[in-house]
C-alpha cells in the first residue's frame, strides 16, 4: 500500500513538474534574453552646456582607456577615423568590448569635442560595451586615461536618443570652447528588416579636471 501511495505521489509530482516546466520554458522562450537597451528619458536631454568654464584644457594625448563607474564600464579604446562612405568607423562586432575614439577630432580634454563610439550589442556577447549608456544621467562621471598617463574626468550634462535619419551631426561634433566628450551607440526600436537600430543614443559630457 505504501508503495502504491509513493508511486502515486511520484506520478503527481512528475506531472506537476512537467506542467510547470512547460509553462516556464514557454514564458522563458518568449522573453528577451537581455532586454532591449534602455533609452534616456526626455528630461535627461534638457540640460545644456551652461555656465562659465575656467579650467585649463589638456595637451593632445590619445585616449587609451575609458571608464564609466556608474555602469561598470572599463574598456580599451582604439583610434578610428572615417569609412570610405564618410560614416564614422567603429570597432568590428567581433570585438564588442572595445570602444573607439574619432581620431580626426580633438583628444579628450582638448578644447572641442572628443567623440567615442561603442556597440550596444553583438551576437556572441549579447550586451556590448555601451549597452547601458542609455541609463546614464546628468551628473554621472566618465574617466578617460590618456597615453601621457593623465586621467581626464568628464561629467554628463545631457543624454538623448536621436533618429539616425536625423542625426544631429553639428551638435555632436561641433567645436566647444569647453573640452567636451560624447558617447555614441545605437538605441531605440530595432528594424528587423534592415537589421539596424533606428536611433542613436548620445551622451554629452564636459571636462571637469584631470589627475594622474
Amino acid at each position, binding site marked *: 500500500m505504501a508503495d502504491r501511495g509513493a508511486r502515486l505521489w511520484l506520478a503527481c509530482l*512528475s506531472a506537476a513538474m512537467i506542467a510547470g516546466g512547460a*509553462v516556464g520554458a514557454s514564458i522563458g*522562450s518568449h522573453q528577451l534574453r537581455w532586454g532591449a537597451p534602455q533609452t534616456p528619458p526626455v528630461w535627461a536631454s534638457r540640460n545644456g552646456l551652461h555656465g562659465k568654464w575656467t579650467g585649463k584644457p589638456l595637451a593632445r594625448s590619445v585616449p587609451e582607456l575609458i571608464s564609466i563607474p556608474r555602469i561598470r564600464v572599463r574598456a580599451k579604446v582604439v583610434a578610428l577615423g572615417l569609412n570610405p562612405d564618410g560614416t564614422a568607423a567603429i570597432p568590428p562586432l567581433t570585438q564588442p568590448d572595445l570602444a573607439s575614439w574619432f581620431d*580626426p577630432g580633438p583628444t579628450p580634454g582638448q578644447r572641442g569635442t572628443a567623440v567615442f563610439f561603442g556597440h550596444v*550589442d553583438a551576437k556572441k556577447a549579447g550586451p556590448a560595451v555601451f549597452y547601458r549608456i542609455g541609463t546614464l544621467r546628468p551628473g554621472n562621471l566618465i574617466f578617460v586615461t590618456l597615453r601621457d598617463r593623465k586621467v581626464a574626468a568628464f561629467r554628463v550634462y545631457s543624454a538623448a536618443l536621436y533618429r539616425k535619419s536625423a*542625426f544631429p*551631426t553639428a551638435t555632436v561634433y*561641433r567645436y566647444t570652447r569647453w573640452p567636451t566628450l560624447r558617447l555614441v551607440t545605437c538605441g531605440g526600436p530595432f528594424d528587423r528588416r534592415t537589421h539596424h537600430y533606428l536611433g542613436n543614443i548620445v551622451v554629452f559630457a564636459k571636462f571637469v579636471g584631470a589627475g594622474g
Partner: protein
Amino acid sequence: MLAGAAPAAASQVPRISVSPIPSAPGTATTFEVLCGANTTSATLFGGVIGLSEQIPMHHVRGPTTGKFRATVMLPVNIAPGTYRPSIDCSNGFSGFAVVRVSPVPGGGALTGDGTTSTQTGTPLTEIGLGAIAIGVLGGAVALFLRPRAGSAR
C-alpha cells in the same frame, strides 16, 4: 599654432595663430595676428576657405600692440584638408594662416546588431526544460517501478 611661412623677409612675417586645431565644417574658427607696431588694420583673405575675399580683422586692445583678431564660421560644405589663407597687415607685413579642417562623419553610427532586442530565451527556459526532464524521469520511475515482492497488492 604658429604659422607664417610667408615668402617675404623673416622680419616682415607676423605671428599668426588659428584656433581650434583642427577646425570642423560649419564651426567658428578664430584667426589672430600680431602685426607689430605702426599697424592700423589687418585683413584676412578668406577666398581659399570659401568666405569673402577680404575680411577686416578687429583690433584687440591690450598690452600687445598691433594685435588683430577675426572669428569666422567655416562653410558647412568645406572639404577636409589644410588651407592657407593669407593675412595682410597695414604696415606691410604679410603671412599665411594654417587652417586644418577635420572631416566630420555623415549621419549616425551602426553600433549594434540587435541581439539584445531580438534574442529570446531567459534562464527560465532552461529551468523549465530541466523541470520537464526531471518530471519525465520521475513519471517513468513511477510507471515502471515494480512493487517490492511481498508488499500488499
